[in-house]
């Protein structure tokens, strides 16, 4: 029997951390449910996919109203995330039905490593070499403007290389379908790097896109029976509550503290997911205690590396 309060607590924690690091709840929720509560990974990814819709919808509702998220750019790019989500979910089904469930833990672990690397790199700054508008800019009206509250100015921007963003966003869809996450990490690569959008607009547009991506993933998971109704609904409640709390904490802590939390959490969870997968594969036996100790050691190493990077930057 699932301890109700434990699931809610994990949901809240995932919601707080997810909203602070801007990745949504799913990236943290699935590993926590599987590693700490022993929930089967299928049901954890199902709960995560639906919770991701909830967090995306409530965030996107605010971002769309304030003009930070660009509805046109979002809708035009959902095309490839949806195709990606369909193919990803069918791939996941193939992996599960082939009896390679352990492989999903390892894939998830590596996805967390990729998320960690992309996000740490991203905060370095906005787009560097701005390209001139191209044909897709005019045909698809990839223009936008928003009121930047921190500088008080109106920021005007345009998007370029739509086809390249569309290609990259296929992979965010694929990762969503495969693992029940939102795919936000790849979204922002497509929007910041390929389309040259300003960082705030691309983050907001990404959370808008995630809703449609996760809805597609959830629909296929629904029909495959990956959705445990009670687990999914408790997760939604917990993650949404957590996201509310996270939004209140975020303005009070520094960017640097957010990075500590992010690196420590993702470092630990990625290592633990990979080790759990290796153990489940049966090739190498790793008792739980050793998994926890090694993962903790890896997380500490990552935080120390981050600390050194900061000292290097400060000089």
């Amino acid at each position: 029997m699932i301890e109700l309060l434990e699931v809610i607590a994990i949901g809240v924690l995932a919601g707080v951390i997810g909203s602070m690091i801007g990745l949504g709840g799913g990236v943290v929720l699935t590993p926590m449910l599987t590693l700490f509560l022993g929930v089967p990974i299928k049901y954890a990814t199902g709960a995560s996919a639906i919770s991701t819709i909830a967090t995306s919808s409530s965030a996107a509702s605010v971002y769309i109203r304030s003009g930070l998220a660009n509805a046109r750019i979002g809708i035009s790019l959902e095309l490839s995330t949806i195709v990606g989500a369909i193919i990803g979910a069918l791939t996941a089904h193939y992996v599960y039905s082939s009896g390679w469930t352990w492989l999903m833990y390892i894939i998830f672990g590596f996805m967390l490593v990729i998320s960690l690397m992309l996000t740490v790199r991203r905060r370095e700054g906005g787009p560097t070499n701005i390209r001139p508008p191209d044909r897709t800019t005019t045909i698809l009206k990839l223009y936008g403007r928003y009121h930047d509250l921190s500088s008080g100015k109106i920021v005007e921007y345009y998007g370029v290389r739509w086809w390249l963003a569309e290609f990259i966003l296929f992979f965010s869809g694929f990762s969503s379908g495969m693992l029940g996450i939102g795919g936000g990490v790849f979204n922002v690569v497509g929007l910041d790097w390929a389309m040259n959008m300003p960082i705030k607009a691309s983050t907001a547009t990404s959370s808008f896109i995630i809703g449609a991506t996760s809805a597609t993933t959830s629909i296929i998971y629904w029909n495959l029976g990956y959705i445990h109704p009670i687990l999914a609904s408790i997760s939604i409640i917990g993650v949404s509550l957590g996201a509310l709390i996270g939004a209140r904490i975020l303005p009070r802590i520094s960017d640097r503290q957010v990075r500590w939390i992010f690196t420590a959490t993702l470092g630990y969870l990625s290592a633990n997911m990979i080790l759990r997968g290796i153990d489940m594969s049966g090739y190498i036996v790793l008792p739980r205690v050793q998994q926890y100790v090694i993962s903790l050691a890896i997380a500490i190493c990552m935080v120390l590396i981050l600390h050194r990077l900061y000292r290097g930057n400060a000089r």
Partner: protein
Amino acid sequence: MKLEPLISYILRIGVIVGITLAILGMLLLLVKGGSLGYTLDMLLDPYTFINTCTVNYSLVYRGLASFEGLSIILLGLIVMVATPILRIILGILIFALEKDRVYVAIATATLTLILLSIFLVSGIL
């Protein structure tokens, strides 16, 4: 009509209704100690066989009228999943009013793909 305020509105309503139904369903489940003939222990078991594929939907529909916790919860989940789809349909309507043919085509293609995914799995597997 402006697209943005309507999308924002529909997303917010979807989340509020979805979460309210999930909470209401959970409370009903806990108060009644089960739902649709399943005990609370069966429903809360992480390895339970009860999932969106195995529930009996005709039972779920009938349960809505009698405030069955599981029926309400599933309805809440459906509302949650339907919200982004409604948002796309709304987009198509507004693009059509604005006579923006390119975006009507893109949003229609998006909607078609999502609707396709509803029938995809039950069809090929």
